[in-house]
């Protein structure tokens, strides 16, 4: 006869439940056999689990509330052609494509727009910042195009500050600070500062690149397109599911 075991709390009930279906390895099975030989609550637990499993198997059968045969109209509806079929597929909880696609497109669209609106200079150099610093304009007023920024800087540069159009940005240290002609930064980066040439700092090459006006506009257009597609897809999914629930 088993006796109450003070250490029953340390016996893992999950192992006892697993023992019921014979899914334990040899070591665990031996452990459970020991518990069952010495611990009354463990024996009780096992007996209860057996009784519950048996009762579940012989549970009463619920009666069917209605007939599920299909009418001709149902059959036609079930066949679902064209957009109805597409909507049904989108509305299905098993649909694993629409949601991530909508989220992905929307995210890409937003990221693209954000990227397109960040002044290029703040990412790659101080061209735009130079313009902003020199004439007090905010960075948002400066076109993100390095050329425009550079041009802006050149146009607004104080007389004598940097007569290096289109490389007005060359006076920038790349961190929004306008370096004087004799700046050590310029000296170092240019390598020929002593000659007072118009060599530019490494970070300012953008100011010298030829105009690339289509770059940002393509990015913006693609971003808007992706954002619109993502939002449209999300709305379509939401609508399809509402229809399905209705």
């Amino acid at each position, binding site marked *: 006869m088993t006796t109450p075991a003070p250490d029953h709390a340390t016996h893992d*009930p*999950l192992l006892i*439940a*697993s023992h*019921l*279906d014979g*899914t334990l390895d040899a070591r665990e099975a031996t452990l459970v056999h020991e518990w069952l030989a010495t611990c009354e609550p463990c024996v009780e*637990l096992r*007996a*209860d*689990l057996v*009784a*519950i*499993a*048996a*009762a*579940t*198997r*012989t*549970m*009463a*059968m*619920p*009666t*069917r*509330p*209605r*007939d*599920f*045969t*299909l009418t*001709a109209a*149902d*059959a036609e*509806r*079930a*066949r*679902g052609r064209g957009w109805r079929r597409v909507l049904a597929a989108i509305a*299905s*909880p*098993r649909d694993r494509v629409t949601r991530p696609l909508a989220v992905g497109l929307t995210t890409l669209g937003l990221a693209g727009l954000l990227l397109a609106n960040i002044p290029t200079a703040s990412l790659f150099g101080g061209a735009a910042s130079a313009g902003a610093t020199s004439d007090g304009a905010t960075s948002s007023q400066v076109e993100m195009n390095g050329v425009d920024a550079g041009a802006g800087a050149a146009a607004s540069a104080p007389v004598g500050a940097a007569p290096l159009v289109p490389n007005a940005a060359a006076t920038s240290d790349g961190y929004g600070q306008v370096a004087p002609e004799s700046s050590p930064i310029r000296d170092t980066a240019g390598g020929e500062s002593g000659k007072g040439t118009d060599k530019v700092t490494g970070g300012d090459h953008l100011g010298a690149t030829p105009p690339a006006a289509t770059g940002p506009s393509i990015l913006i257009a693609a971003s808007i397109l992706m954002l619109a597609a993502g939002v449209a897809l999300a709305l379509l999914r939401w609508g399809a599911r509402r229809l399905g*629930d209705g």
Partner: protein
Amino acid sequence: MLDSPRLTIAIRRDPQTMEGLRSTTVADDPVQRRDLILIEQARDGDLGAFNDLVVLYQDQLYALVVRMVPDRDQAADAVQEAFFSAFRNLKSFRGGSVKSWLNRICVNAAMDAQRAKKRRPVQPYPELDDESWQPPAGESADPERTAVAAERTRALSAALATITDDQRTAIVLFDIEGYDYAEIAEMTGVSLGTVKSRIHRGRLALRDLMEGRMELFRG
């Protein structure tokens, strides 16, 4: 349709156990052969043949789904949706057991209903108050035993409705429908270990929930 010769065959069939279905080949099994003929006719556009299949399996399938989705209306909708889906996908049936195919469609529909329930919760488990649960087959006519059996079913139904959807699905498929771990893992898209864990944890949860009523089950 009720007078159709196909239905006569269906009504005369002997109930098959899960093991029986698994151990017989399609060629040997008249039930399988009949089901395959009905499927073939349904594929050719015979709605009556499909409806014969519905008549044959709707009770079993409803019983399966209502245990997974305790709300009776949602369960009925899920079964209807499963039959719609089966009809829509007749061409995707690749042979084998028609009953298993329908069961899988119903399990998917039930899991969809469980997800929908999470999305739009309804009043929980109204079936607990109704008397539509039939006593188990073969139950003694003794009123006291019948009352105890009914009480046991009520307690178990309430507890089953309370555990998680995943645990309930695993227990219903394993204990009631007789699927093995691997089949349940495939049907529900989780690992074998997860299935075992859900069944064992589910049973422990049932025991905890019925702690004060275990005497109904012990004797």
